[in-house]
């Protein structure tokens, strides 16, 4: 049993609206876990609990227990900054900073206090290589990141997260704004990355979940309906609702 995250009875409210209802699940270390479900089912909200990005939303109330490496991350004394360096995040829309490619990747390390140029150079190169972007951009690291294509921008965002040497990378529909070829590249990248990182990915695309994930969790109306190995979810789901969803009967 090697769980990096262990969630027990998680309830989340936006004001009076309950977005997550008593979620309990474990996330395996160095595996890809996919979260699927129709829009508004709470899968993104759940993902944002894992690095406490929901703190930014006013009126958001969380009950229950989220353990990361046996530490309870919901306590007030817990160091959120440190959590976010260990649990990186890639967003739906590629959102590089309006600065150079180098500065984008070096942003996180700089914020955590690394100032030495030689050290940063090594980190940036390593991160870009891991994100399979280095060869494409090595000659123009000083160019503005907004000049990259959408797929390159998204891989840059992944490199930016990797530069922090995280344990976990959370991905919130990372390919929904990309074309099929860029999507394929990101998926290949995820396959490479899972050797070193735990990846939790939210996706609307069920084929994508089937292709890249080891485990799949199906959310519906704020409830976790089913979680199992991806093979089982897609071939012999236990729950009728899961079957209906993956066969395209709704959602």
């Amino acid at each position, binding site marked *: 049993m090697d769980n990096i995250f262990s969630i027990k009875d998680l309830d989340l409210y936006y004001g009076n609206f309950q977005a997550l209802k008593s979620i309990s699940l474990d996330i395996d270390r160095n595996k890809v876990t996919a979260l699927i479900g129709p829009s508004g089912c709470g899968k993104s909200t759940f993902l944002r609990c894992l690095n406490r990005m929901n703190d930014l939303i006013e009126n958001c109330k969380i009950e229950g227990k989220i353990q990361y490496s046996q530490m309870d991350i919901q306590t007030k004394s817990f160091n959120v900054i440190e959590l976010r360096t260990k649990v990186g995040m890639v967003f739906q829309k590629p959102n590089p900073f309006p600065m150079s490619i180098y500065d984008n990747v070096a942003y*996180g390390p700089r914020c955590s206090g690394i100032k030495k140029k030689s050290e940063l150079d090594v980190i940036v190169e390593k991160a870009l290589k891991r994100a399979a972007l280095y060869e494409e951009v090595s000659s123009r690291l000083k160019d503005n990141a907004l000049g990259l294509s959408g797929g390159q921008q998204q891989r840059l965002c992944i490199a930016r997260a990797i530069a922090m040497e995280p344990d976990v990378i959370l991905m919130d529909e990372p390919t929904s704004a990309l074309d099929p070829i860029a999507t394929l590249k990101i998926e290949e990248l995820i396959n490479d990355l899972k050797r070193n990182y735990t990846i939790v990915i939210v996706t609307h695309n069920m084929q994508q979940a089937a292709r890249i994930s080891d485990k799949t969790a199906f959310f519906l109306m704020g409830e976790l309906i089913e979680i199992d190995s991806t093979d089982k979810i897609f071939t012999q789901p236990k729950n009728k609702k899961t079957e209906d969803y993956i066969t395209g009967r709704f959602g």
Partner: protein
Amino acid sequence: MSNKRKLNDIFYQFITYISALISVLALSSIFMFVFIKGSSLLDFGLLFNDYHEKYYNGGFNGDIDFSLTPEPDNLEANEFYSSMWGIALKDAKDREGNAIIIVSYISKDSPFSNMYDKNSVDIESSIVIKEGNIVSKISYYDKPTSLTRYGAELMIKDLDTVTDIREVVYTSLGGGIRGSLLTTLFIIGLTLVLALPMGIFTAIYLNEFAKKNKITNLIRSLIETLTGVPSIIYGLMGLAVFVPFTIAITKADSANLISGSMTLAVILLPIIIRSTEESLKVIPDDLRTASLALGANKTQTTFRAVLPSAYPGIVTATLLAVGRIIGESAALIFAIGTAIKDDVSIFGRSTTLSVHIWSLMKDEPANIELASTIALIILIIVLALNILVKLVSKKFITKIV
């Protein structure tokens, strides 16, 4: 039905055309007016000359070493030369339009380069006539005095017939705006130093750190109200608060440049706060979440990710501020004074270009030409600053953004 729609269409289009035309005409006619009225007096001398003319009374002691320089070739028909005295004079008009006789050339060995100062107690003191000086009177021992009203030609003729001079009365050319120009540039710098950091940090506080509640909204609407307050009220405040304050802590004993800058800084604050805040508002939240998700804290996110993206807005704020500083006159009349100086005087009364215009226009008769020339110079400064800031920020932005 379709005809009515067409008519409507034509009507509204016509209104937009007419409005655009009138706006363009009104704006360009201001430029035209200033240019036509002011361009005749525009020259570099105006920019660098003193405002106050200085009077000199020169005389000779003992033997005079006459000039041996022959008439230079490049003199024009209206310039008259005396080879004995080594000086060329011509008729001209000063900035107020009065006839004057101006020194257009003086040779190196001219006796006028070595006169004693009749106004000085020190008998050894020597004064020199320079090119551009105005000769108003030359008196002799045995001849009637040469005066401006007889013209340059006659003055030279008189000079050629005498071997000694009792007194030369001449003045340096005045009416220049060097002092006001320098004061304006100085006050722009000082005011920006005071107002920009404060305004930008206030905007950051309001937009990034302050909780979104009634108090923040109240502060914001107060700031917006301040934008519309007439500047003369700020001037009163400057007179009542900043002038005594600067007198208390500096060696100033009247309205001064520092109190003027402080008053202007207060006028500028709402403008800077508002335009910085506007540019912070349009920065997508994506950028902030991306930064926070990388383990940056709030301060790092604000200063490393958000603020650089707000740079174009801050440039605009600065430009607006500079424009406002140059254009401000009402508040400054109280807070800095109306005394026209020849140099920057930090602890005393002085005047900026706009107040200089006001001083010229309140005289009787008003000197519209010179006022328009200064207005033209102000326009040129504003234009130059605009272009400069755009060029600099273009270079800067392509590097960062």
